[in-house]
């Protein structure tokens, strides 16, 4: 178990470092002079070359790229994400300020999405009413095809303007949380429902379901106790992707509902080409992904005891028994 933990922890740090490096490469090494474009949207500005140079020096952009990279990396280890080009404040403070707003709608949206998605999948595979089953299997593809920005606007239309139930914008009170959370929940629910549907269908074909039925377990009991428990494992391994999806969805949702938060901060930073802030947001998102995956990897052996056994066997026999680890399953599930 300790070996399993250590391997997972090391992998998490590695992914985080690589995410930082790739994003740094994209933002700093691609053509385009960030400072020149920062000061004038199309590259033209009233500053003299000397003044431009002064701004570059202020942000350390005049030094060679490897030096900037190492400097930034050292800062990251200390928890320092640099300073914003736009208002000169530490990026860490900017992120910390808006993060709670985003966590509220993201958390609520994720919860809502999980519950709805799971209900849809369970009822769709359980029901014997043909039209209901067909309707419920048709819903997730629809949920995946609806653009979030449009869904949010339609919800605004219906529940803020046509029927004034919820406020159209802002961060005040629980009422302002509802519509953004629903907007985030729909794609999450659709993904959960599709994955769980597949998991349940394959679980219901397994011999242990036959055994449970033969021993006299009722249909509902077999469905919930036996099939759901095993059929939900593939969905659990994708929790990291789902949390990442909700964080990414916040970009559009917060813009639609004019809510302060991580997403709006990102849009503003991209619009003003505030490179350090964009880098900070990406590193934060990668950190969340890594942490969620780490949590899944730690909880997983409790759900599926084959994992620890597989790791132990591999350590001694170098066999091919690691196919049940969450990362192996994740790899399989993200193929496509």
């Amino acid at each position, binding site marked *: 178990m300790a070996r399993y933990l250590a391997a997972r922890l090391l992998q998490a740090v590695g992914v985080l470092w690589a995410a930082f490096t790739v994003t740094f490469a*994209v933002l700093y090494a691609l053509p385009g002079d960030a400072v020149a474009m920062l000061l004038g949207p199309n590259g033209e500005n009233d500053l003299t070359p000397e003044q431009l140079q002064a701004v570059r020096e202020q942000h350390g952009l005049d030094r060679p790229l490897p030096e900037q990279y190492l400097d930034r990396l050292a800062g990251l280890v200390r928890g320092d994400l640099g300073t914003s080009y736009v208002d000169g404040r530490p990026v860490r403070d900017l992120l910390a300020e808006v993060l709670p707003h985003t966590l509220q709608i993201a958390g609520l949206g994720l919860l809502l999405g999980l519950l709805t998605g799971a209900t849809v999948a369970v009822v769709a595979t359980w029901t014997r009413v043909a039209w209901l089953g067909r309707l419920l299997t048709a819903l997730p593809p629809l949920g995946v095809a*609806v653009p979030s920005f449009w869904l949010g606007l339609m919800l605004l*239309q219906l529940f803020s303007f046509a029927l004034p139930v919820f406020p159209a914008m802002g961060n005040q009170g629980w009422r302002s949380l509802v519509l953004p959370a629903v907007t985030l929940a729909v794609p999450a629910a659709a993904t959960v429902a599709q994955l769980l549907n597949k998991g349940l269908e394959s679980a219901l074909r397994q011999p242990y379901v036959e055994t449970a039925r033969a021993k006299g377990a009722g249909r509902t009991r077999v469905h919930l106790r036996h099939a759901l428990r095993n059929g939900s494992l593939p969905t659990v391994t994708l929790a990291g992707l789902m949390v990442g999806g909700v964080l990414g*969805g916040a*970009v559009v949702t917060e813009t639609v509902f004019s809510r302060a938060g991580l997403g709006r901060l990102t*849009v503003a930073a991209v619009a003003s080409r505030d490179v350090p802030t964009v880098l900070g947001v990406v590193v934060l998102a*990668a950190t969340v992904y890594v942490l969620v995956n780490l949590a899944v990897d730690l909880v997983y052996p409790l759900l599926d005891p084959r994992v620890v056994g597989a790791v132990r066997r591999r350590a001694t026999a170098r066999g091919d028994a690691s196919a049940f680890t969450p990362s192996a399953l994740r790899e399989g599930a*993200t*193929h496509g």
Partner: protein
Amino acid sequence: MAETVLVSTGLAEPAAPATTDREQVRTIGDRARSALVELIRRPGLTLALLVLAVALLAALAPSLLAPGDPYAAAPADRLQAPGAGHPFGTDQLGRDLYTRVVHGSALSLSAAGLAVVFGLAVGSLLGLLGGFVGGLVDAALMRVVDVLLAVPGILLSLAMITALGFGTVNVAIAVGAGSIASCARIMRSQVLSVRTSDVVEAAVAGGATRLRVLLRHVLPASAAPVLVLAALDLGGAVLAVSSLSFLGFGVQPPTPEWGALVAEGRDYLSSAWWLTAMPGLVVVATVLAANHVARSLDPEARPS
């Protein structure tokens, strides 16, 4: 595609099942007839193909579907609800929304297509290289791919846009970057399974160079699943491109584009619902159709 693979491995496996032999000698007329029967038996697929055909026609020859001028303002007709003269209504300047949506499909669809092609090309190249060369190169490439998966697609796209600047082509490249990872993975696993096949071993034994083996034998045999993935990506690319345009990083008004049209209509949400609803519905229909067609290409494909 499965048949091509069978034909190329036919030498090594002479005992192919009888049904496949019969399929191979079917005439083109037989194939057309069975395709027609298939379409009648699956009305959903027919509808999806029809929607895609209309969208494609709108992109290639917009004047056929909407002869009017997408920029022609008519202040007298401003903000009219959908009706006989204007099926999608008119906007704040009296421009016909239907005409603007039809003329916007060229930009939306070509950006999505470019995104898919870019992701497919870069991803396949990485996967091909990693799978064929192996060793350290493979390990390094696959770690990069892991990282691309760790960052939500839209944030990756936004980082690319920060570096590249605004505009439709940059949006397309940024969206395509998001699908590099999955293409690379599938291509790599395909290459790994083809690399040890009899065809490749025969070619190597026959004295073919590494490059020739890669291009003539490994690439064609690995292409099918990657192309199915690309088809699956198309719907997602339409969504992502329109989202980034909605945020204002794509075309600038007054150029029509589906996401940009929704963004323009946003200011009139309380008074003119059709300005946001109609372009959005067109996006939904296109994405649903693209995903449906892609899934029916490959019954094994995982929806995601």
